């Protein structure tokens, strides 16, 4: 029992049981705050080591603490605490339970020391995050959650296939040991790339995160992509293909953010962009770059949670989520706007804020390795980040033209969570050694050199000047921008619809399929493609159909994998 109590995720899972058992009698949120605090305290006292057990002949290392896993699990626990505090005025038992399972699974994933434990909690994280998206409570949230489930189901199938091939090929059950360039290597990298939102596999993020509740978005911004960064750091350091992918990803996110109108989708594109820095750093693979990726993940989780809290504060206060509808509300929510500014300066890499001490490490690592184009793209991405998160979003949402929007007062718990988040961003920015002393690799770095500070100040000043000149041209307008999710929302959905109609048109197959089954598939395709379209008949089953597809994809991947394994080792 003592061994179990040592696991930080245990706190969150116990909280889940308490919330579930008392779902009709007590609000879940105080439980969330208490157990997340317990996890933070447990992780602050945690030491390196491992705990394992044997189940059905498999050696399961369910707690493997080293500097890398402790760094990630600590910041996961901190952001869970902030998220529960932020949402404590509105989160219901269901949302709290989903958030507890999500946070606990993320911590358990980064503390897993074997493939099986890793896979189980990776998938638990996927399912609980879908539940969290659905707690948004709107039709848009349900449909975006379905698309999210479809994509992550495919990712889970890839991961499962990769793990099975790795083990069948004589690989160890302990996490790692992938042979570069082998089929398991690419399958698992593909699965991790989906969770890391590497374009073109990123659209699930910008599609689903804005549809969750305001507190749900805070949790979502922290765990899935950063667990993937942890997996990249653990399994794929120095994989060169990640360098161009990461640099392109950093720029991709900021370009789309410039034209985005939905405030949380805009921030979602900046998750893609910031994770791009980490992906590129993992690809560079030097100790400085890997420390840069780990520290930037730590910083990013804190400031991105703060930014989503700021965007959520605007939504909570006004009920509006689009820049084109907002404006001139800053005098009604000065503290929230000030804390948003802390987050914006942090993500922009302004000196004295935590983004500066981690982002500059990655850019310097690229410079040290003479990766000129990578460094240039990362610098341009930093410029674009300040342009959209630091200037465009606050200008058009909080300042700018007053539109007579009614503003409700914000609850104290929400402001307290933002205050703590802002304080942490400043604390780590002012005292970088608080973070550097926890980094996993041996590399020294001094962020506050005259060269670094002047460089950063010049970039920010120039960007501010350009925004001042071009701010009218950057005025957001209603509408959406097509992204890669168009591929499965339009052509794929139409292909499925056409295929079901073709099947229904032939003989005995038609008699079998005609009627309800065809309608179900057709409705599923229509819902995937057209969030607003009503089902033909029996909406409830049409809603469930994509789950069936996901299971089908997963099952197909498992069968194919076993066939491949059997063909390779028929004996």
């Amino acid at each position: 029992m003592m061994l179990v109590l040592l696991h930080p995720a245990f706190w969150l899972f116990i909280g889940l049981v308490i919330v579930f058992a008392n779902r009709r009698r007590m609000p879940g949120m105080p439980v969330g705050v208490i157990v997340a605090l317990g996890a933070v305290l447990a992780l602050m006292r945690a030491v390196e080591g491992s705990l394992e057990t044997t189940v059905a002949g498999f050696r399961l290392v369910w707690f493997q603490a080293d500097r890398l896993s402790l760094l990630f699990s600590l910041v996961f626990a901190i952001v869970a605490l902030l998220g529960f505090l932020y949402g404590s005025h509105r989160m219901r038992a269901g949302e709290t339970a989903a958030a507890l399972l999500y946070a606990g699974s993320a911590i358990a994933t980064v503390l897993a020391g074997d493939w099986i434990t890793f896979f189980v909690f990776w998938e638990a994280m996927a399912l609980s995050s879908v539940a969290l998206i659905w707690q948004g409570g709107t039709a848009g949230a349900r449909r975006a959650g379905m698309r999210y489930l479809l994509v992550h189901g495919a990712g889970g199938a890839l991961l499962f296939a990769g793990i099975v091939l790795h083990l069948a090929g004589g690989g160890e059950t302990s996490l790692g040991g992938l042979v570069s360039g082998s089929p398991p290597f690419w399958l698992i990298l593909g699965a991790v790339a989906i969770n890391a939102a590497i374009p073109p596999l990123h659209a699930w993020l910008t599609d689903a995160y804005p549809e969750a509740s305001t507190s749900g978005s805070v949790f979502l911004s922290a765990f899935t992509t950063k667990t993937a960064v942890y997996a990249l750091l653990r399994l794929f350091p120095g994989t060169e293909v990640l360098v161009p992918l990461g640099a392109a990803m950093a720029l991709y996110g900021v370009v789309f953010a410039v034209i985005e109108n939905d405030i949380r989708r805009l921030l979602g594109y900046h998750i893609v962009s910031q994770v791009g820095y980490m992906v590129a750093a993992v690809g560079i693979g030097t100790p400085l770059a890997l420390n840069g990726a780990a520290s930037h993940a730590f910083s990013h989780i804190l400031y991105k949670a703060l930014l989503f809290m700021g965007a959520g504060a605007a939504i909570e206060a006004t009920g509006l989520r689009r820049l084109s509808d907002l404006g001139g509300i800053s005098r009604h929510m000065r503290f929230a706007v000030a804390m948003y500014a802390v987050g914006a300066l942090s993500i922009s890499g302004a000196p004295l804020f935590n983004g500066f001490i981690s982002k500059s490490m990655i850019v310097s690592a690229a410079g040290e390795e003479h990766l000129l184009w990578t460094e240039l793209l990362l610098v341009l991405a930093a410029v674009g980040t300040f342009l959209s998160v630091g200037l465009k979003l606050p200008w058009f949402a909080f300042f700018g033209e007053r539109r007579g929007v009614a503003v409700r007062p914000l609850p104290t718990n929400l402001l307290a969570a933002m205050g703590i988040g802002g304080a942490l961003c400043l604390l780590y920015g002012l005292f970088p050694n608080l973070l550097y002393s926890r980094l996993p690799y041996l590399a020294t770095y001094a962020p506050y050199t005259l060269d670094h500070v002047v460089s950063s100040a010049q970039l920010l000043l120039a960007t501010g000047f350009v925004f001042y000149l071009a701010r009218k041209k950057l005025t957001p307008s209603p509408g959406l921008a097509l992204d890669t999710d168009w591929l499965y929302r339009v052509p794929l959905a139409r292909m499925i619809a056409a295929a079901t109609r073709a099947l229904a048109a032939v003989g005995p197959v038609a008699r079998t399929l005609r009627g309800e089954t065809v309608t179900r598939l057709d409705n599923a395709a229509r819902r995937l493609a057209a969030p607003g379209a009503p089902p033909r008949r029996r909406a409830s089953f049409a809603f469930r159909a994509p789950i069936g597809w996901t299971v089908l994809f997963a099952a197909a991947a498992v069968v194919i994998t076993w066939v491949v394994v059997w063909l390779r080792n028929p004996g």
Partner: protein
Amino acid sequence: MSRRAAAALGLVVVVLAGLDGLAFLSGAEHHGGFWNSVPLGDLALGALGAGLLAWFARRVLKPLLSRPESYYDGAGSP
């Protein structure tokens, strides 16, 4: 831009140029790309980069990818 704002901006640029020159003269190690070793190189890169990003996003990407909010409503209908 008002005259006072322009003067303030000019002052900041002069201070940054001075600090850049100080870093250059003190022989401080410059990290990375060529723009770091050119006085006010980051300022130029920032202005150019921000202008380019804003232009590309507004003039190229938006006309190409922008659709009405209701675009996906009925997109997959037979």
